[in-house]
């Protein structure tokens, strides 16, 4: 390999060039294009950056961004707790699972944003409504993946737990949940993107504050640079969520990845 012969400094430089090359190129092209274009909906990266600083750094962060983020966090947390709890119960009881399966498949198939009008009809428009909206969409992938994960627990493990007469709670904690955790994490990853979508849309629909509301407001008033800055902020939130999830997943599933590497080697 040629890479092995290069010095560490060149390697780092090459990696950095690969990581940043295309993004820098895109931003430069964007800047050139917007400077030449007469289209006023296309604003340059510097204008967006400036709008970003003016719009989101300062009181707007506490007024619009933090409430949105806390609703997102609350909704996700509630979805995980409810989804995993219900999923473990349904996954363990075969009759119950067969009873509920078609119903749950149906609920998962409903495009989550159409639940917004339903939740609004049932609860009116309050702060909790938006959290409930997030839960109403984000819970299904977690619930269904947990059911699958619990169901496919290795029978040798459950039988071992049986013959050692491991008490019910301990068994749940040290056999069932770890065995289901890869599937649960898959569910959480799907739920995260649904939750983010629902956070934005519920605010576009029924709100006078929050990120979704702000972005829609900027668009209606043709504040183009501000709108772009809002999109940028949502993108950053999406990336940050993905990074945090990646760290948590690596921690939770360390044993799992380790095991897979061991069997592959």
């Amino acid at each position, binding site marked *: 390999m040629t890479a092995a012969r290069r010095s560490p400094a060149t390697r780092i430089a090459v990696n950095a060039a*690969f*990581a*940043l*090359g*295309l*993004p820098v190129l*895109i931003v430069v092209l964007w800047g050139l294009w917007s400077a030449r274009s007469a289209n006023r*909906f296309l604003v340059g990266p510097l204008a967006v950056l400036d709008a970003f600083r003016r719009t989101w750094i300062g009181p707007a962060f506490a007024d619009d961004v933090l409430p949105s983020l806390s609703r997102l966090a609350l909704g996700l947390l509630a979805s995980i707790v409810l989804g995993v709890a219900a999923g473990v119960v349904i996954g363990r009881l075969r*009759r119950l699972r*067969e*009873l*509920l*399966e*078609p*119903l749950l*498949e*149906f*609920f*998962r*198939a*409903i*495009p*989550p*944003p*159409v*639940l*917004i*009008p*339903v939740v*609004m*009809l*049932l609860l009116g428009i309050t702060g909790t409504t938006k959290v409930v909206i997030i839960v109403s969409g984000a819970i299904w992938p977690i619930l269904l993946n947990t059911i699958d994960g619990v169901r496919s627990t290795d029978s040798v493990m459950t039988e071992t737990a049986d013959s050692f007469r491991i008490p019910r709670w301990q068994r749940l904690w040290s056999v069932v949940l770890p065995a289901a955790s890869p599937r649960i994490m898959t569910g959480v990853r799907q739920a995260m*993107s649904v939750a*983010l*979508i629902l956070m*934005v*849309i519920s605010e*576009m*629909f029924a709100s006078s504050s929050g990120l*979704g509301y702000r*972005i*829609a407001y*900027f*668009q209606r008033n*043709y504040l*183009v640079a501000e*709108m*772009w800055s*809002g*999109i940028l902020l*949502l*993108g950053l939130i*999406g*990336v940050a*969520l*993905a990074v945090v999830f990646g760290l948590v997943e690596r921690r939770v599933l360390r044993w799992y990845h380790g095991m897979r590497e061991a069997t592959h080697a």
Partner: protein
Amino acid sequence: MRRILLGGAGLLGFVAVWHLVPTLGLVGPEYLPYPAEVFAWLAQELRDLAFWRRLRLTMTSWAIGLAMATLAAVVLGTAVGTVPFLRRATHTTVEFLRPVPSVALIPLAVLMFGLQMRAALFIIVYAAFWQVFVQVIYGVADIDTVARDTARSFGLTRRERLRYLVLPTALPYLMTGLRLAAAVALILAVTAEMVIGNPGLGRSIELSRSAGDAVGVYGLVVVTGLLGLLVNAMFRFVERRSLAWHQSVRSEEAR
């Protein structure tokens, strides 16, 4: 057999609970209408040509969006997946763009295309593209090294390699990506109609909501749920048929 009976019982039980909630006055019937009303509304809508026209509009933008996204993702995904330089160079950009929630782009789409179906298509294509793209990259990267070396020593041309080496390896991944993208595209098709207001089922939901027509809202939610189930079943079927030769499907059938 027992599964079908129990599942049916579950559905009936759900409808019974739904009926009981307004009957017992837990929620007023103007907010949660009786299931019988909703089903009657559905039966009437199904005979209405306007309903089918709206359904067709929604499914048209779904189909066009999915097709465009798939085409772009397969071409770009194959290129990026097979050329290591491109893969390294695009990695950070992809990791940044992929988690951007597609609905964040709705205002941008509205500014660029107006309150049109094209604005909805933009959103649908963006969301569905990543699902297929990522799977295609995984699939192309998954090529067995022995098979690749064999193909090379037998002197297969580029086209032959794509046909006999890359395609069979990547197909299962592509099918998974397609199934996910189909579901996402439907979600975004309906969402775009709700938010942007281009005609279709989504806009009908929003109109029913603002008119205070609870029966219509619930009826349309049931319709979109059924559509979701249908799309899912359709793509699972296609997946099974096109991968009938593949180990994962064969071993399942054998069980």
